[in-house]
């Protein structure tokens, strides 16, 4: 018995020339764009996204490198929140951020404002402020180690000329973190200043002029016109500066190694200690997950406080 096949509209139409179709697809801009995107997306996935998820996985395991990771439940997170050294590292990191970010951001903004004027030597001064950014962290740290040296340091020598006794900058538990904050601000002013300069040059001059005509003095102009208009730029600087402080490892490694009395023991130093010192990868991973969450929360707070209300 023969069965008559029902013809569909598709089969009724003329046969598709697949080779022509493939040629069309390959010849399309979208295909070329996709090919170009493939490499960066693959790299991004392999080097950025995959490690984040692998780190998350490791945080639930006990992994010491020479044996495969084994499931460890929430013990690593329990360690993070119960171990006094890790808790102190969280506190130190937050204190570091609270001390460095507002002061560093404000200083960079003021310097950018000053260097946005038509003053003699403007380019030289901008270069001078930017120099620490292009200096290696190691070189900077070595220079600051000498500046802070209790017996032979430049800073104590200068203080001595005005009768202030020498301080043990990096070994006094009350001064060590502040000493690191000073170096961090010194190292970051240049890059933040450049971002603020770009923002300042984006502010329409007619608004500033209009305010001046209305009787606003320089300080009022700065506080009531410039700063509000720079809100998105300030937000950007605050967020990136906060992240950079959470990742600040080189200075601590070179200058204090977390001491004295664990006062400069930050989260990133604690991650390093656990991973490379004790090969406790799971603990290191858990601390970095907590660190990521704290950065996210701080970023959200920054957005809430500093977001452009008009745009919101």
């Amino acid at each position, binding site marked *: 018995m023969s069965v008559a096949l029902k013809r569909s509209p598709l089969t009724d139409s003329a046969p598709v020339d697949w080779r022509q179709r493939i040629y069309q697809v390959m010849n399309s801009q979208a295909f*070329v764009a996709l090919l170009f995107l493939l490499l960066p997306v693959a790299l991004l996935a392999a080097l950025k996204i995959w490690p984040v998820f692998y780190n998350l996985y490791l945080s639930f395991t006990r992994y010491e490198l020479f044996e495969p990771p084994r499931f460890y439940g929430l013990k690593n997170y329990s360690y993070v929140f119960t171990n006094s050294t890790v808790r102190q590292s969280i506190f130190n990191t937050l204190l570091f951020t609270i001390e460095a970010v507002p002061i560093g951001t404000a200083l960079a903004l003021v310097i950018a404002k000053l260097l946005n004027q038509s003053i003699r030597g403007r380019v030289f001064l901008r270069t001078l402020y930017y120099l620490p950014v292009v200096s290696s962290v190691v070189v900077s740290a070595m220079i600051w180690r000498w500046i802070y040296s209790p017996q*032979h340091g430049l800073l104590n020598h200068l203080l001595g000329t005005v009768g202030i006794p020498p301080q043990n900058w990096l070994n006094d538990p009350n001064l060590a973190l502040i000493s690191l904050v000073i170096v961090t601000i010194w190292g970051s002013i240049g890059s933040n200043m450049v971002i603020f300069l770009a923002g300042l040059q984006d502010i329409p001059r007619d608004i500033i002029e209009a305010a001046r005509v209305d009787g606003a003095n320089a300080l009022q102009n700065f506080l009531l016109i410039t700063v509000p208009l720079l809100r998105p730029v300030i937000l950007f600087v605050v967020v990136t500066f906060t992240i950079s402080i959470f990742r600040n490892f080189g200075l601590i490694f070179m200058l204090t190694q977390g001491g004295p009395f664990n006062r400069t023991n930050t989260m990133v130093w604690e991650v390093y200690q656990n991973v490379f*010192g004790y090969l406790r990868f799971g603990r290191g991973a858990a601390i970095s997950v907590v660190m990521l969450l704290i950065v996210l929360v701080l970023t959200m707070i920054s957005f809430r406080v500093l977001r452009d209300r008009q745009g919101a």
Partner: protein
Amino acid sequence: MAGKLSRRDFLRIAAASSTVASVALIGVRPIAAQADAGQFSLAMVDWSDPVQTAFEETIIPRFMEENPGASVTVNWTNWGRYNEEMTTAFASGVTPDVFQGGAVWAPQMARRNWAVPLNDFINADEEWDWDDFPAGLQADVTIRGNIVAVPYRQDLRTLWYNKEMLAEAGFDDPPTTWDEFLAVAQATTVRDGDAFDVEGYHFSDASGNWQRDWQPFLMWVHMADGQFLSDDLTACALDQPKALEALEFLVALVQEHEVTSYPGLDPQGDLNVLAGRNAAMQLSSADMERVINLYAPDEQETIYPTLPLTGNVQATHSWVNKFFVSSQTSDAAASWGLLRFMTRQDMLEVYSASNNNTPPRLSLLDAEYMSEKHKIVLESAVYARTFPQHHNLIALFRPIAAELEQALSGIKAPADALADATSAINEILADE
């Protein structure tokens, strides 16, 4: 025009090529150590210009001369980043065939199976005189019966003193006991109010380094006849009376007798505190002599070593640095050949002489480069104790460092500090 590449075609080919190349690169396996082809890789952490010169101009060329066709690639690095470099090397499966390691590395390497046991090679090698290495050093690299490394250097710490300063204070001879030591330290200390011009005894530097205190502290524990860990390595022994005696003596030096500052004085660059005449006595290795010869030649006739002090016992500490053969080497026998060559008597002499290192071979005691001072340091070997063979010593040292800071600063009583350190260390041990 036929045959001419359009811009779009060019971009397409470029994109496709880069994609293929990246996929291919991702698929490339790491290059494992290739000792079998006579291509050796060696990680050297004991870096200094003279050591590098000794290797590049004498040791490696001699090895290649004696092993035609062989070549050695040396990766020079330093202690600051060495641990991370080796950890990532093992994690990624790209390790050197032979690598240097520090004083606490043997138990770690054994536990992780990262070092090839050398017993068979040593036993089968009739020319290799293992007994030329002192028994204490052999024991230090032997973990549960497996010889996992060969020593290349021992850092024996003993008491160095400034003869002139002691003579000015009325002491013709260096101290031999803790009581004498205290008397000399008190007589040689020079203070200007709270500030020290000269520390009678320099305990540790001011530099930001968490290891600065526990290293010299362990020597005082040895002198008190105390221990860091119990013999079976399962418990911390720092809360025992002898270790406490050591810490109480040290705290008294800082707080009561004020003969050493805490944190200590800062070295002037490479010039350490004793060589810089800011201290009268310091526990140090033969490196002191190297520093004096290089940076303070005027002090060559004033600074001398003497044998270790006697507390409850006469004792000191020795850091034994070693060479390992990586478990990832493709030819352990060939790599042993390189290690064996580097640590044989004549090459070890070249190496040790280059940096005034204290050699680990008994037959080098009378080597030409060994000065009279160096021989005194070497005499200390009989009093030397090494680290306990626990695989996680670095983690165990951290609580001591934290508690020592508290005790030496006068914030915590020595007994409480050691009890807290013991408790923290026992917690880590229990978690193993």
